[in-house]
């Protein structure tokens, strides 16, 4: 390519082209953002139509009623799911960042974890149906929690690894220099230093799993009332209730489905905001 002298006319043409492409991209961005805003608008508008206190206090009924059993079911299943998934995910994340750092085994685990992170959630439901529901002989909130745990685990493993890696090596060196074993260094120095970040990951995982519907269809199944047990019989969940009510031929129940969708979306977004705030506070604290 030869060096050409500056060509003013050519430059104007290039500037114009760049501006046009700028505008096209801005338009695309506007279109995308407007579409998403439209969905949020519909969600709020229709969700508020069926909103009342009884949504939180009354269980589901054939007419009227609320969603209290579904909200309760989601809290219990997501809670137990996190209780199972978080320790496993945290331990795996710590392994990847500390013990196995740089090893071939760790890179395989990391790769597989990244795939599990976005694996089709309906298949997790099928898998748990075969390994939990069939052996136990019935649908249960526990089976739902196991499915959610399998979804939460990779999220937590990933965020834990990322955050633990950020802990400066000087911390580890200092601890080791004082004669601490690796286990002590990790549990007393590294993990506490990264705790805020790990918590952020857990909050994100809660947000991710509490909105999941597909993996619960064949595991916790659903229930119009409060489940009598976590281990026997179906249990309601908010996404399942939304799915069920959205299919009903009644405006009242459709509105309740929208209300449920609003509740779950607000919950999920709040968790996301909370995790950001905690992340911000912790990282600001560290830099000081």
């Amino acid at each position, binding site marked *: 390519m030869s060096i050409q002298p500056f060509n003013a006319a050519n430059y104007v043409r290039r500037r114009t082209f760049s501006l046009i492409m700028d505008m096209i991209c801005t338009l695309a961005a506007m279109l995308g953002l407007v579409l998403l805003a439209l969905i949020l608008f519909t969600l709020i508008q229709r969700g508020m139509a069926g909103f009342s206190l009884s949504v939180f206090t009354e269980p589901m009924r054939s007419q009227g009623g609320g969603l209290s059993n579904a909200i309760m079911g989601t809290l219990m299943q997501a*809670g137990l799911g996190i209780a199972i998934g978080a320790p496993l995910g945290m331990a795996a994340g710590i392994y990847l960042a500390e013990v196995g750092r740089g090893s071939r085994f760790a890179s395989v685990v990391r790769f597989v974890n990244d795939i599990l992170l976005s694996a089709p959630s309906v298949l997790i439901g099928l898998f748990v149906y075969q390994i939990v529901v069939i052996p136990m002989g019935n649908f249960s909130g526990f089976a739902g929690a196991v499915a959610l745990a399998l979804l939460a685990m990779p999220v937590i493993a990933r965020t834990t690894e990322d955050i633990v890696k950020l802990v400066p090596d000087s911390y580890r060196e200092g601890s080791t220099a004082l004669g601490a074993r690796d286990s002590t260094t990790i549990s007393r120095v590294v993990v506490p230093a990264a705790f805020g970040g790990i918590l952020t990951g857990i909050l994100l995982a809660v947000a991710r799993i509490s909105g999941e519907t597909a993996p619960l269809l064949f595991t916790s199944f659903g229930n*119009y009332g409060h489940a*009598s047990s976590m281990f026997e019989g179906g249990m309601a969940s908010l996404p399942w209730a939304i799915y069920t009510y959205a*299919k009903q*031929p009644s405006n009242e129940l459709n509105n309740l489905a929208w209300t449920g969708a609003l509740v779950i979306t607000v919950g999920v977004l709040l968790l996301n905001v909370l995790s950001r705030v905690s992340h911000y506070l912790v990282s600001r*604290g560290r830099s000081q």
Partner: protein
Amino acid sequence: MKFMKNQLRRTAVGAIAAIAALTSFGAVASADEITGAGATFPQPVYTRWAEQYAASNGDTLNYQGIGSGAGTTQIINRTVDFGASDAPVAPERLASNNLLQFPAVIGAVVVSVNIAGVNGNDLHLTGPVVADIYLGRIRMWNDRRIAALNPGVTLPAVAIAPVYRADSSGTTSIFTSYLGAVSLAFQTTIGAGSSVSWRAGIGAPGNAGVAGAIRNTNGAIGYVEYAYATENNMATPQLQNRSGAWVRPNSAAFAAAAATANWASAPNMAASMINTAGQANWPIVSATYILLPKNPTDGARSLKVMRFFDWAFNNGQPAADQLHYIMLPESVRAQVRQRWCQVRSNGQPVWSGCH
């Protein structure tokens, strides 16, 4: 900073404790309940009965309309206390899985349409025309064959969108049995079953899903249990019955068809009421069935199921009327109670009315 971190940690520990408390609370909450699953076709009336029963007796019933196919599977696996199916289960399958089958209530399937300007029972359709719509042979609402049946109605040049059940369902079984009975082409190319290979249209889950899809789709036609159509004020065309008469879907027409059933000679009480002869008879009427294990592991739970249906047989009329279901004739109810004696636990009949 340190304070912050401790605060976070304390919050986390608190959250985990709260979750644990919630979880254990769930394990002891709520007393005994009986669980049933299956047909969505009688779901409105079962749910209404359950609410009234809980109010008067305190026992709760958790009924889930998951489709007849799924309900049958669930009771075979004994994961529920009773199963419910619209289509009677094959006698061999009942025997091999040790199940008792009895009818609970009678209901009707109606055709429902969403055409601008067509309301109530305005539209007239015959079975073969409906079959051809579902075969994809009639595609527009202004088709000559539909127009010929409806001289007074202006039909738009709108494409027909047939809606069917995406899940396996007794409603589909009843409807396809009817279409198979009136159209040889339907019988040979698609056949009757609780889930079939449709040649045209869109699938929606559950009676409710079908009704919802009809409501949302211009030019749609679908089949739903009558309660779903009335609750939703849907247009329900008149059908020509076996005797050549035009009938509007209503409780009287359903009752007329129900009266022709021959209960005495039907094995497992599976009396057919589809495409019956009679001037006033609605052609798509069927009983819906309950499945109980004959050898329950917990006889007390089966007894609770029987008590519930006994209560419903005695007190269920108002709810059934309101939702346009037909109660079983009194003689049939007595026959059902006799059959309950076949359910035995430790060699003894579970039901109290046995001698």
